[in-house]
């Protein structure tokens, strides 16, 4: 296949990718878009297959069956609560592939006489560096989210120095290669140092900050792929990689903004560490906490006009999303107006909570974004907080000393009554004290979220 024909066909693939993203603007036809993108990907693979047309076709086929088979099985089996780590895993392997391609390309062109063209060597070293960071970082993010290693930030003395030294080593070898030192081991060091950097840079980041990290690593892999397009002089890699790079960057910034923190603070702040001390200081001034039984809460819910559910990650952990929907259906059948208020960083990746509720068949028009939900609270009778904590913490509005001060929150305390479902009075994931629990409007319903919701369903039925 000629260069021009294959590039025109690649252009079709690019168009399908853009359409896939464009269709995501509306949930009604988003799925169609994804299918169009998948068709474009098949086209790109077929075009490349014909173009390469080598004696190694069987090796390519075997490798595709192995990788594709693993991907298909893992993707079919994963539970929706485990989606963040699955995305991290697929993201990591993409970055790893980009780094390997860079290694193979350097190996191929080094024996040629004369220094390689600067854009090609630059593409090679940068896609190796970024791809390796993305691979290692994603694997650590996967391990953290899968709870193979602790989710709490891991810090030690001299951490920033070690990270800095590794990054400088990776960058130094990369620069030497681009400057014309034709030694393959330089790239090996770049990759090794980048892998170590990727591990060490994600390790200190707490589980609550994972939405930012995952979208950043997604951007990294996209960038590594785009740079791979420069080394192979391939348009489809450049455009598709950069689309992902741009979107991942934008999402990263949006997530950081939703937490009122800079990206740098998320990455290097080791947030959970700081807040433990803050929590200890704030812990002393607790007022009275009102607790209620499921029957009391059931009465409040059944005789309310408007109930807003505020789900957090605790809901997903308890696997209570189906029970919540059952309760919502029951209330609706009694004429109560029900909706869900979803904070942008609820869950472990951007938009995670929406997926979990969609899985429980909650119709998406009931899922309200923060800006849409906040004005509604003042005419809400009961705000039912299930497994959310920091995203409803009024300290973010009022207490300048709080580590989350300035973070936009859901103003549940505007509602007539706030019911908080919580296992115990222990502070949440980030370890920050929450004055909402001491608010006179608030009643606490202690216990496992799933068990509490189940008894609420039973009690509302019995009314």
């Amino acid at each position: 296949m000629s260069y021009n024909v294959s590039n025109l066909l690649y252009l079709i693939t690019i168009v399908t990718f853009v359409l896939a993203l464009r269709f995501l603007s509306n949930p009604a036809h988003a799925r169609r878009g994804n299918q169009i993108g998948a068709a474009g990907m098949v086209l790109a693979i077929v075009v490349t297959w014909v173009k390469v047309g080598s004696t190694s076709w069987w090796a390519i086929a075997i490798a595709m069956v192995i990788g594709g088979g693993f991907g298909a099985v893992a993707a079919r089996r994963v539970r929706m609560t485990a989606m963040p780590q699955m995305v991290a895993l697929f993201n990591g392997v993409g970055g790893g592939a980009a780094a390997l391609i860079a290694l193979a390309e350097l190996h191929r062109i080094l024996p040629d006489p004369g220094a390689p063209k600067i854009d090609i060597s630059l593409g090679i070293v940068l896609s190796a560096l970024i791809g390796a960071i993305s691979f290692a970082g994603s694997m650590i993010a996967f391990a953290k989210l899968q709870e193979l290693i602790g989710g709490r930030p891991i810090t030690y003395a001299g951490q920033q120095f070690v990270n800095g030294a590794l990054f400088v080593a990776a960058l130094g070898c990369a620069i030497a290669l681009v400057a014309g030192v034709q030694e393959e081991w330089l790239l090996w060091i770049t990759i090794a140092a980048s892998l170590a950097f990727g591990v060490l840079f994600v390790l200190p980041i707490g589980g609550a900050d994972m939405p930012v990290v995952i979208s950043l690593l997604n951007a990294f892999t996209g960038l590594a792929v785009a740079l791979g397009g420069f080394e192979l002089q391939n348009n489809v890699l450049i455009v598709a990689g950069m689309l992902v790079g741009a979107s991942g960057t934008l999402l990263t910034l949006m997530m950081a903004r939703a937490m009122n923190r800079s990206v740098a603070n998320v990455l290097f702040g080791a947030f959970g560490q700081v807040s433990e001390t803050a929590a200890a200081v704030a812990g002393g001034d607790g007022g009275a906490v009102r607790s209620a039984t499921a029957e009391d809460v059931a009465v409040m819910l059944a005789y309310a006009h408007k109930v807003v559910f505020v789900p957090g990650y605790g809901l997903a952990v308890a696997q209570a999303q189906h029970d919540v929907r059952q309760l919502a259906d029951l209330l609706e059948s009694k004429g109560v107006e029900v909706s869900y208020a979803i904070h942008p960083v609820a869950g472990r990746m951007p938009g995670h909570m929406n997926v979990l509720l969609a899985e429980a068949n909650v119709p998406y028009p009931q899922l309200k974004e923060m800006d849409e939900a906040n004005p509604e609270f003042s005419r809400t009778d009961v705000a039912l907080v299930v497994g959310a904590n920091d995203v409803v913490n009024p300290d973010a509005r009022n207490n300048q000393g709080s580590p989350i001060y300035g973070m936009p929150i859901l103003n549940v305390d505007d509602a007539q009554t706030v019911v908080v479902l919580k296992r115990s009075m222990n502070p949440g994931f980030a370890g920050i004290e929450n004055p909402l629990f001491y608010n006179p409007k608030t009643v606490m319903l202690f216990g496992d979220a799933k068990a509490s919701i189940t008894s609420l369903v039973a009690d509302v039925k019995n009314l």
Partner: protein
Amino acid sequence: MSHNTLLVFEVTILVLAIFLGIEVISKVPTLLHTPLMSGTNAIHGVVIVGAMIVLGQPDKSAFTWIIGFAAVVLAAANVVGGFVVTDRMLEMFKSRERPKKPDET
């Protein structure tokens, strides 16, 4: 086409792709941010094209063979896993009329 002309072309489309990416993504509602991430994740699986080119080279060394093979395996997992997972998620987003499933847990 000379190498430099090609390079200028490539840089041009790279920069345009950045703006296109930002433009398209900013229209995606937060409701769909998780499928957006897994969808873009699937799209960067296009790295499989590069992996196939590496593994498909004629007269390659054992080293390139192994590296290329590993790259195709990883990229294929990225592509298939990414699209399948995104499809599974988007399938779940339903508007008002939902099918009644009596055996629901």
